[in-house]
């Protein structure tokens, strides 16, 4: 599996280079025991000494360079330094690009966290959801979804025009999209996890993530919402990918 990517479509493109918004996000993450570093700083691994939950000087400098427009992108590594393993959240990466596609991604290494037993993976996923909700409630984006390399098609223009055709493995609809889809429809569609959020948005996870045999399928949930299921997010490039007429290497 390749990484899990969650895309946050902010309300305005100005927010991608907005000091106040980014710092607000940093404060929320620090309160969740995250240590925020530049991507070239040493990684924390299982036996690393727990360092404090701060924004490192390296990242602070990179933030200033980005806000001043000297760099196009700001890439951040977030390590959770909660000393309690029972409540420690997942490490992730994220990046801001002011001239990008109109979202910022949060990326989690699936081969690090979503491996092994089903219950272990689901526990990790539920912890992740708690963080994702907090980030959502900090920035109030229009829409959040789990990206799939195997399809679904949505971009900023479609989000702004409320042309959300695909249901993803993880979805947070902002209040405008909730209204467009229909609140009642969302509240009654089959879902493994559904939650009303404080700003009127709804977290919607259609199917038990990482279950071998989910009780609720994404297809059923999508149908109830008048959408189509996006492609399997856990499938990266399959060996069937090849240009038309090209023989497989194997």
């Amino acid at each position, binding site marked *: *599996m*390749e*990484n899990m*990517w969650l895309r946050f479509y902010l309300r305005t493109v100005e927010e991608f280079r907005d000091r106040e918004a980014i710092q607000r996000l940093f404060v929320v993450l620090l309160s969740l025991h995250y240590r925020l570093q530049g*991507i*070239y*700083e*040493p*990684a*924390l*691994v*299982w*036996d*690393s000494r727990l360092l404090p939950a701060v924004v490192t000087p390296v990242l602070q400098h990179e933030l200033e360079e980005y806000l001043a427009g000297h760099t196009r*992108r700001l*890439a951040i*590594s977030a*390590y*959770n330094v909660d000393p309690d*393993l029972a409540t*420690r959240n*997942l*490490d992730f*990466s*994220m*990046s801001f*690009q002011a001239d*990008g*596609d109109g979202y910022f*991604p949060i*990326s989690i*290494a699936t*081969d*690090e*966290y979503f*491996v*092994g*037993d089903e219950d*272990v993976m689901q526990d*990790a996923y539920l912890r992740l959801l708690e963080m994702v909700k907090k980030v959502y409630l900090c920035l109030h984006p229009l829409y959040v979804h789990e990206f799939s*390399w*195997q*399809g*679904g*098609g949505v971009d900023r223009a479609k989000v702004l025009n409320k042309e959300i055709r*695909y249901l993803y493995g993880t979805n947070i609809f902002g209040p405008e999209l909730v209204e467009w889809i229909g609140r009642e429809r969302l509240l009654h569609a089959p879902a493994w996890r559904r939650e009303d959020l404080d700003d009127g948005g709804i977290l919607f996870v259609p199917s038990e993530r990482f279950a*071998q045999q989910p009780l609720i399928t994404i297809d059923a949930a999508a149908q109830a919402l008048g959408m*189509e299921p*996006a*492609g399997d997010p*856990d*499938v*990266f*490039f*399959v*060996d069937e*990918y090849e240009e038309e007429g090209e023989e*497989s*290497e*194997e």
Partner: protein
Amino acid sequence: MSALDTLINWLAPFLDPMNGFPNYADEINTIHNGSLQKFREQQYKLDPNQALQQNVIISGSFANNIQMTGDDFTKTAADLSEFINEANKLAEVSEDFAEAVGKIMAALEEAGAQLEGEEALTEITADVDIAAVAEGGFNPIADVLGLILTIVDGALLINTLKNLAQEIQTDIKHLQQDLAVLANSAVPDPGPAPQPIQDPRTPGWMNKPVDQAQLQELNTLGWDTKLAGGPYTGQDVQAILENLLRMGLSASDINTIITQMQAVGCNNEQIVAFLKGLLSSDGAYPNSPTPQSITKWFNDHKGKSLYNIVAQYAAIAGIQGAGRLLERIIATNNTGYYYELKWIYEHRDMVARIEDIAPNRLGNPSQAGDVIMKSKQYALGAVVDTKSLAWMVYDKETEKYRPMTEQEMLSFISDKLVPQVKRDESLYRGYPIVYVFDSSKWNSYPADAALRKQIQQELIKQLTTAGATVMTSPPDQVLGVGQTPQPTTSAGPNETLPQMLENGVDGLRKVLTGGSGTPQLPPGQIPPLELPPAS
């Protein structure tokens, strides 16, 4: 033998080992770290295998220590040059002095012969008899002055030499320490990379009973005897078949997949190795592959494709962790794992382990390094991650693959690949990290040439900055070299070279002091406190 020759003789034991670095001398004699980086880049481009088993002499703390040693060596060499210059002067002084003394003695003898019997000239002193000596055809004033000046010069020179020698002694002490550190930083017995998880994961089906009816059906087909041979006995094959049944495959399923492999030309040994591999996932997914995924995979793979995969797998089946890779192939069918298999097959003699597992930061098992290369003397095996990236995303709307956007590609690099490099660096402290990209995709995607070049440059820049060496394969080619972090090893000190250096210092001391430990002038001379007045 001149004083210079003596010095050179004493320095030879220390100079000669340093002659082992002639090719690096120019590079390491500069202060800049970039020089060593440039050297590694040249080496790895000429011989990509050196990137996969990185020579510790030109990377890591050993390289850093060489650079430090080189700096001290440069200083020592400069001080020695200066010392030798001064020693040359002293040699000249000594020669002039010897000549002057010889001349004076000859003149004195002559004068003595001439003055024999004359009471006033029975005692000869340097001052009083100068005039008499002068009458023997010798220029006393100039020569005595010259002699005195020579003595003074000699004293000054010797003082300079003494100071220089002390500096050189300090330099050599530093070099001695450097070389001890250098020896200590070499990997004495490089073993496999660390594997923090100690308990192998046992599949859940291991304790299930064998369905006897299914077993009977398989035995009727006689696969245990038909497939036996080479490294596998009939009993080995029987055990494998029983475990496949425990796993949940039916006799019919097993018969089908064996027949399928035979039909594409796989030999018995290859078939048995593959079947055994299906049972060998003790990694992060011990209950995978499932029977359903196995039968589906065989449905999807026929012909030459199947033969190649089985043959490649069988060739690497003996490498620790091979079964984990097979599990990933069967369970995910992802292109990347097929590329990994092919790459390992092509480098199988250099591979120590495949698909490591390590705890994640919640304490649960997770995937770690893809391929761990073997280490050998003075070379650390790299932790290799293979990537087969087409930079394409499937678009359900058009039912076609579309190219990734620039942000998607840049984000893939900074938000996935770079953190992965940093994680590998932290998990495998001190070992080189190498990322190998499928050259067939590297040279073709994205299709837009300008964008492709941009992404290639961005990949190389970000990954090498993070510390990974970037390669493409096949053929193996190094595109960028990452900095190797400091290893922490504890080899014993190299006794020989420091001992030689100590001998060299002692030797120098003896040359300068005649064994007394105190600098001395040429014998018989006492330097005047001041020059005599000019006449």
